């Protein structure tokens, strides 16, 4: 039995960041890279299934990205993934979630897992569509925003719950193979000690190109994308001021501001 876990290395903004010269992204110098928070939970869920299983379960992590992503993959290997796959070449640059999903679908066809896990969304772009799009491309059933999962390796179906608005729970039985997007909080992700990350360097990270996966160049990158980022910018700041003084003075100033706003004379 196999579980494929799709993970992403996300970017977090550093202090005083700048927008890159083309105006479509943050200057990479101002980004701190780390594994997407949701992916910690989906990997943990896969490793938990593996550890509780009587039969052998292989957990494979896959990611799309350049060499620096290996650092995050090594963390996944330290936490219990058996092997890792990374897909990259320059043609992949500029891919939107759909193009990424094409790559993940190709990886899935190659690995033939029983389950594909992805995080509900990534913390940097928050499209929340990569996992679902992959299911669409594969023609597999999917469950989105899974907050509890019951699955015994070997079984043909899995049962999961989703939290709906108003405190409702949605319990769903799903036919395998399937794609599940995992919600944060489903479990408590384990800590990968630096020592274990170092030792995980011995586990293999296989690097593939789209061509290795029989993907044409126009299936990935900007050419294979259905959307395009026009620009990224910081909106102009609204006006805000701190009103100081005693409560009476504050009230007076506030009243004056309201009058001014309404166009009344002070």
């Amino acid at each position: 039995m196999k579980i494929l876990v799709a993970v992403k290395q996300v970017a977090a903004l550093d202090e005083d960041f700048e927008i890159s010269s083309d105006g479509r992204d943050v200057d990479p110098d101002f980004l701190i890279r780390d594994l997407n928070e949701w992916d910690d939970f989906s990997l943990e869920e896969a490793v938990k299934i593996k550890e509780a299983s009587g039969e052998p379960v292989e957990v494979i992590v896959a990611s799309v990205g350049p060499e620096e992503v290996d650092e995050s993959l090594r963390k996944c290997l330290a936490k219990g993934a058996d092997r890792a796959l990374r897909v990259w070449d320059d043609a992949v640059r500029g891919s939107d979630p759909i193009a990424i999903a094409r790559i993940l679908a190709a990886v899935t066809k190659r690995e033939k897992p029983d389950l594909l896990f992805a995080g509900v969304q990534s913390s940097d772009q928050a499209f929340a569509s990569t996992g679902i799009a992959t299911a669409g491309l594969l023609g597999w059933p999917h469950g989105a925003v899974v907050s509890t999962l019951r699955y015994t390796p070997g079984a043909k179906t899995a049962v999961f719950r989703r939290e709906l608005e108003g405190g409702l729970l949605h319990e769903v039985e799903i036919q395998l193979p399937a794609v599940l997007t995992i919600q944060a909080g489903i479990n408590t992700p384990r800590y990968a000690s630096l020592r274990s990350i170092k030792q995980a360097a011995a586990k293999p990270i296989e690097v593939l190109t789209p061509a290795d996966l029989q993907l044409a160049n126009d299936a990935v990158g900007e050419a294979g994308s259905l959307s395009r980022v026009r620009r990224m910018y910081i909106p102009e700041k609204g006006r805000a001021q701190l009103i100081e003084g005693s409560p009476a003075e504050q009230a007076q100033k506030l009243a004056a501001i309201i009058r001014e706003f309404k166009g009344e004379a002070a």
Partner: protein
Amino acid sequence: MSRTDAVTRILFEAFSKAEIRIFYLLGYAAIAIFFYGVYVQIRKYRRGAALRLEGSLWSRLGAMVGSVLSHRTIDRRDPAAGGAHRLIFYGFLLLFAGTSTITLEYDILQPLFGIRFWHGDFYLVFSLVLDVAGVALIGGLIFMMYRRGWMKLPKLNYARPDRVPGDVDFNRPQYRREDWAFLWTLLIIGATGYVLEAARLVWLHDRVDVWDTRWWSPVGALLAEGMRALGMGAHGGGLLRHGLWWFHGLLALVLIALIPFTKVKHIFTSAASLMVRDPLASQRLTRVPDSQEQVGVAKITDFTWKQLLNLDACTKCGRCHEACPARAVGAPLSPRDVILSLREFANATLESGVLPDAAELNVHGKGPGQVAMETLWSCRTCMACVEICPVAVEHIPIIVQLRRKLVEDGAMDPLLTKTLQTIHKTGNSFGESKRKRGSWSKGLPFKVKDARKEPVDVLWFVGDYASFDPRNQKVSQTFAGLLHDAGVDFGILYDGESNAGNDVRRVGEEGLYEVLANANVAALQSATFKTIVTTDPHSYNTIRNEYPDFGGKYEIQHYTSFVKQLFDSGKLRVTNPLKMRATFHDPCHLGRFNKGYEPPRDVLKLLGCELVEMGRSRANSFCCGAGGGRIWIPDPVGAEKPAQNRIREAAAIPGIEVYVVSCPKDLTMFEDALKTTGNEGKFVVKELIELIREAIPAALNTEVA
């Protein structure tokens, strides 16, 4: 035969050959049991991991003999117990030496070489000495019984804070029974020795060589006079002597046989522990070799033989139990019980002929003898236990080794997990951008040099708290101003500096510590400076004691001693004496860890402050509770925090105006505790740096270079 020749110890007189044979047989049996026990114990220690000791064996032996003979370590913080132990120790030592020399002559020298010395004046003097030794022994034992039975010392209460009543190993009554059995056995051996001596005198009172020299055994003679006054004759004396001889002898043989199996073995294990002590055991933790697959201690056999010996060295004196800040505030930890628990575990698993399965050797958990993770995470690694232990038990390395395994398993508070991840990602525990590390210096009227870009005399290692915590940033600015005013050529590493790793290492995250230490050593290597000064005692400790293992050997001072030098050389001068009533809190890592007790006190006095010491100061300083990574783990709600306990101690000083600290974490912990104990407004918590600034208002200082 001359008169003096005839004067000698009466040994087997009036014993039948058969009796003597039986006695020897029993004697050999006792010695055989003793040696078998020694073998079992040594086999137990050898089941631990290998360890090579550094330093010469002779200097180790010398240091151990010095400690044992002087009783220096046993006297500390309990001189009465030290004095009584000294009486017992020397009494026992002399009596044992006396008995041994008799054996030496009677069984070895005389039969083999015909040499006799145990007669005449030598015998008489020895007999006097042994009589006095017996008084010392019995006196010491009676005091110890009084102490155990009537003084009700909390440190001698074996109830465990990490167990609840009803647990099989909650208060361990077997220890109490053993304590009393030991005291009574020694007392009975001593007392029957005297009665035996008196009975012998009564029995042989018509022999001049015996009776005329009786006052060389004053206690025995006094008792003999009493017995005769009560009507005992030679026949009665003889019978009593014969019976008591056997009783006394057998009891002594039983004691010898049982040494390796009972607390009596501390005679050997405590001495051996003192001999293998590492004076830097807690200051400089051991590296994990890259080749080593497993990190930390999971099984009892993962401890080194020295640590297993440490477990057996413990005499349950309770000094660590008393000193522990976690124990003092009701946390489920007593350093004594960690040691005793592991000892019970080692005895149960490692004393039998065959080693049990690995699964049965796991020391982590809540079963008998195991150590719970709650216990391990309660430790502040403040070193109070190691510092006071009279027999050189090194608790901190044992606890950190156990924690390393917990970290590997991820068995820790989620907030601590988060902090470790943050430190890995950003190099600081605040989760702030690396770039912001030097931002606190932006508000200064002068530019703080970047030591990576231009050479400086003094490299100031700022540390996390002083760099990022808003309250401590103010102190950092003040210190920068002081250095500037004193004309010191100094700089910092800006974003080249990372968390020094002292506490990360004491949490047990050795891999992350390696990353931090290597990063800082590389950054320091890229800078040009003469000496390092740090305002952070935690950084001070690890850079001073642990970075050398990572290729970073530097001259480093804590700011207190550096500032003292600035005063001594006239670069700083007090212009506004403070005249405050102050008390000083020794930071663990400056005081106990690195013996920096005097400079902060000297500076305080230079500032014109009246220094009033708290009851627990210097080596006995009471941890603020932030050490060992505890600053990143929330304390239980409702329970007293160590810092609160400490502030209450300070608040009891009449007229106290300022509680002086010299550690960023202390400032955070104690300002909080001042508020939560309701002492706000009564006195203030201040960094020594702030007081120095008050005593040297910037404008008045004329020493600007």
